[in-house]
């Protein structure tokens, strides 16, 4: 019995090793022959090769969708989109392991990344705002009140015009791009008090909707029109809408970045051009809940200074 088990474990181990090895090895070679007949008319000079994209999990769905479309147009190209987080995206792009590193934050904001060696492509804009449990009875807060809530100065919703209900904070992990953006533009760099910490936006939304008095923050795409499970908070009377983010009236937003190490290769450049094309920017970007960079009337530099375009 035991011997058989050992043998089975050994076999599984060897099998997984060979799978991993073969997975690394074949790259673009094997899949080319079968798919070449499908679509040969799309481009005059056929692109081929492999692109590895990785990093921010917030940007991952959009990148995966665009990659799928790009591969349909260029069947000889293989694109692999991984997650890993913004930090991983920047580190691996700098090390050259990812052709494109995705990040929610400017490379300049990470101290040990040489931002000059990376080329920044701002592919989309994401707006975010505070989400409140409906029982709190709050729809609008001034920026000062919002800061008091998140820094723990105010502990009950009745002190900021809501019902008599204890405030429960829902934070994001240290280093998260969403947290960095919210801290910088909504809290003016004040450090939020300790609270429940969750990484995934869906979990955050679930917690806020189920816990009376909970407050957190998330991207605007997670507030849907008919969804009353969480209340979308306006700041200083300005509604957190795509239009207000685009016009620069609503301050809490960030770019989604794609970084390449130095100048990109021809293939990677073609993909990034496709990413910035009107086709993708007007169709896929809004469909995935982002704002197109082209709709922005304002722009921002790495220090957070906002200027008109």
């Amino acid at each position: 019995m035991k011997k058989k088990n050992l043998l089975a474990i050994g076999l599984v181990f060897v099998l997984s090793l060979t799978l991993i090895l073969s997975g690394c090895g074949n790259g673009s070679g094997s899949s080319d022959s079968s798919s070449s007949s499908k679509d040969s008319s799309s481009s005059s000079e056929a692109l081929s090769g492999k692109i590895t994209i990785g990093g921010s999990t917030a940007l991952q769905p959009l990148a995966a969708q665009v990659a799928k479309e790009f591969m349909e147009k260029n069947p000889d190209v293989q694109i692999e989109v991984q997650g890993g987080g913004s930090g991983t995206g920047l580190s691996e792009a700098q090390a050259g392991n990812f052709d494109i590193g995705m990040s929610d934050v400017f490379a300049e904001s990470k101290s040990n990344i040489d931002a000059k060696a990376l080329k920044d492509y701002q592919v989309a804009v994401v707006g975010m705002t505070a989400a409140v449990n409906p029982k709190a009875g709050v729809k609008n807060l001034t920026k000062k009140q919002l800061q008091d809530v998140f820094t723990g100065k105010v502990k009950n919703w009745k002190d900021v015009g809501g019902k008599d209900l204890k405030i429960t904070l829902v934070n994001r992990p240290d280093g998260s791009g969403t947290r960095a953006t919210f801290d910088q533009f909504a809290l003016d760099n004040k450090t939020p008090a300790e609270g429940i910490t969750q990484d995934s936006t869906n979990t955050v939304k679930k917690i806020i909707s189920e816990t009376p008095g909970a407050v957190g923050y998330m991207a605007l795409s997670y507030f849907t029109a008919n969804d009353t499970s969480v209340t979308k908070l306006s700041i200083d009377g300005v509604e957190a809408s795509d239009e207000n983010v685009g016009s620069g009236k609503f301050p809490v937003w960030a770019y989604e970045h794609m970084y390449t190490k130095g100048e990109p290769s021809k293939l990677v450049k073609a993909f990034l051009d496709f990413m910035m094309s009107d086709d993708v920017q007007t169709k896929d970007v809004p469909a995935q809940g982002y704002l197109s960079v082209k709709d922005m009337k304002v722009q921002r530099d790495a220090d957070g200074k906002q200027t008109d375009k």
Partner: protein
Amino acid sequence: MKIGKVVTDAAPASRNRSKLINEKGFFSRLTDRTSESRGKLLIYGSALLMIVAVTAITLFLTIQGLRSFVVDRLNFWTFITGTEWFPDRAKNPSFGAFPFIFGSMAVTFLAALIATPIAIGTALFMAEIAKKWGAKIMQPVIEILVGIPSVVYGLIGLSIVVPFMRQHFGGTGFNLITGAIVVGIMILPTVASIAADSIRAVPDSLRQASYAIGATKWQTIWRVVIPAAGSSLLTAIILGMSRAFGEALAVQMVIGNVGKIPSSILDPSATLTTIITLSMGHTTTGSLLNDALWSLGLILLLISYVFIVIIRFIGKKGEKR
């Protein structure tokens, strides 16, 4: 007659074989089914790989984990005992890992406290009371429970235990005891199956002797079987605890992840593993926070080594007795 024949036959055969081996090249020696060196190489190779892997992981984690103290000049003592974890604060970021060490310990011990009585009860049922039924039905059920991935336990915890705690004890439902319950259920089958094995290993003569002097079944179990299985039962519990200690995913989903020492078991908390899985992806390689997370990993490894040492120690003590 027969024996003599075998002996006389065997000698030249083995001589032939050794001659064959010497004549063959390296590759044919490995591919030949009857070859001695093939099996030897396989077994020695596996053993070596194991040792190399353990050494490499320890070395790598030590080097990475010491970076925050050597390169980034964090004070080791304040890192271990500090209670403020604000790595992102613009002014004087602080790295105090004590809340996480405390959280890990608390979850582990509470989980063991919850799991142990139930697990040993189950083990006694399987190995003492309903032996046939236990072996036929309970054993497979427990094996299935061991195989359920931790993310499933986490999901069940998030959608059942958390709302339950919120309704009955107030607060958010994300707290230390919720984490301990989820992990306790998770380690239950591990503890139960090892405990059942150790109870079965108690020699029958002891039970018969106990019945012979007129003891009831319960008296036999309580006074004879459990003390006799004692040290291996402890090993089962500590093995379960070391699994609880290393669990990240399920705990992260239900414990709330607050980097503060909880004032009661109904307060949210965080563990070493949850803070690593939550923050690691957001950090860049070589940054201060990244190094600090590696240091947490090193602490985790060292504490799980302590668990192993305890298990060895108890095992030895049991042998002596």
